[in-house]
């Protein structure tokens, strides 16, 4: 079953606006990661936040993590047309024996930036 669920499923905003996507998960985690996927391409890792971190920044990206609510958010500031893509959250599990059994992905948020 899906561990992470992104919200909203789709988001359309004007270029220059900020985009916020949310992710909820069900079980305890070691870390949470966000990935981006351009149409028809592989996923690209964006940012990782550990379970003992609350906020992390990378360029125009800001990720928050609330382990008490089992939720995370990804904020993209000053959006650009090139940010149009699907965004996925992914979690590992502290019970996965070192994480070798991979990550569990949500269904993604499809973000469209209108020029």
């Amino acid at each position, binding site marked *: 079953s899906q561990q992470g669920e992104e919200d909203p499923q789709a988001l359309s905003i004007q270029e220059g606006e900020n985009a916020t996507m949310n992710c909820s998960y069900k079980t305890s985690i070691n*870390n949470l990661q966000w990935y981006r996927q351009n149409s028809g391409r*592989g*996923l690209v890792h964006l940012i990782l936040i550990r379970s003992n971190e609350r906020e992390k920044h990378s360029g125009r990206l800001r990720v928050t993590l609330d382990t008490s609510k089992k939720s995370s958010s990804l904020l993209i500031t000053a959006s650009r047309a090139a940010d149009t893509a699907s965004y996925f959250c*992914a979690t590992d599990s502290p019970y996965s024996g070192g*994480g070798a059994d991979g990550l569990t992905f949500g269904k*993604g948020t499809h973000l469209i930036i209108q020029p």
Partner: protein
Amino acid sequence: SQTIHQWPATLVQPVGSPLSLECTVEGTSNPNLYWYRQAAGRGLQLLFYSVGIGQISSEVPQNLSASRPQDRQFILSSKKLLLSDSGFYLCAWQISSTGELFFGEGSRLTVL
């Protein structure tokens, strides 16, 4: 630097035909390797993972199989494809220290 290659990029196959998708990684040794499938408009489903040569773990029962004949080679196969096997197949390798995944460009399979 590490790179990951997948082929073929696109494949159209009739029901009942065999399948072989190949993935190779360069620039790293003994990587954890993964096959995911992405159905249209859906998230990623983990199919198989491997922590070493000849070591394959399956996450879901299906008519697909995986093999790892060499350290940096991961193959996804089927003897007889079903319509439900259509999808976008992604190979990935993992950085052990952080759990980050690096994905190939994917193989789009259409079964007719």
